[in-house]
């Protein structure tokens, strides 16, 4: 997973698998939690840039 687009694609696939029942709920929960952590990490980077009054340059979000 190199960037936010990849993450979004994987989350979309995860959602479809959950709807179809082709993935275990526990596995889906853990994967979703991990995605949440990745999203939070980007938010923290944005907060850091804002507090330093800099323009954020986050490769993951490009």
């Amino acid at each position, binding site marked *: 997973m190199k960037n936010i687009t990849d993450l979004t694609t994987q989350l979309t696939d995860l*959602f479809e698998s*959950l709807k179809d029942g082709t993935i275990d*709920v526990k596995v889906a929960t853990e994967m979703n939690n991990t995605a949440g952590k990745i*999203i939070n990490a*980007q938010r923290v980077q*944005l907060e850091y840039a*804002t507090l330093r009054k800099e323009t954020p340059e986050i490769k993951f*979000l490009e």
Partner: protein
Amino acid sequence: MEIVKPKRTKEEARAYQRAYYQANKERIKAMVKEFHEKNPDYMKQYYQANKEKIKAKRKEYQVANREKISAKQREWSHKNFAENLEKVRIQRRATKARMKAKDPVAYNKKAAKANINSQKKMVAELTDAYVRQKLTRDSKDGPRKISAKDIPQSLVEAKRLQLLILRKVKDEEHNRSNYATN
């Protein structure tokens, strides 16, 4: 000699009046203008004398043509909103203030209900505003450090999907526990 006027039906009379107006448009307009210049308060006095009748007719028209009026208002809004944003905002504020002054209890009740419904809709539909709110809410470390507009749209989309999956997982777990108890 007795002049016999032709007997007309209502529709025929209207058609005759329309045709007469079209044929004498400029002359009639000039006469009307001259009359109003000589009697500037005529419309005000007429309204005062027939207020209830005019209001009743207006209400009757509004009830009978609700869809048509709403459509016209929507059309005006779309056409003029962007051009007259400030003007529309001032009008809306004035309308709210007028309604609040008229009946503050009813106004506050209606506003609270509308607010609750709006919040419910935001949460149910996972609107951009709601997702941005979730991303920028006060963390355990303290007050929010970034504003909603600082969050890029791509992050909002990812968060929305994450929330959808979370809801789906909760649904699945709920269904399973129901099935287990039954």
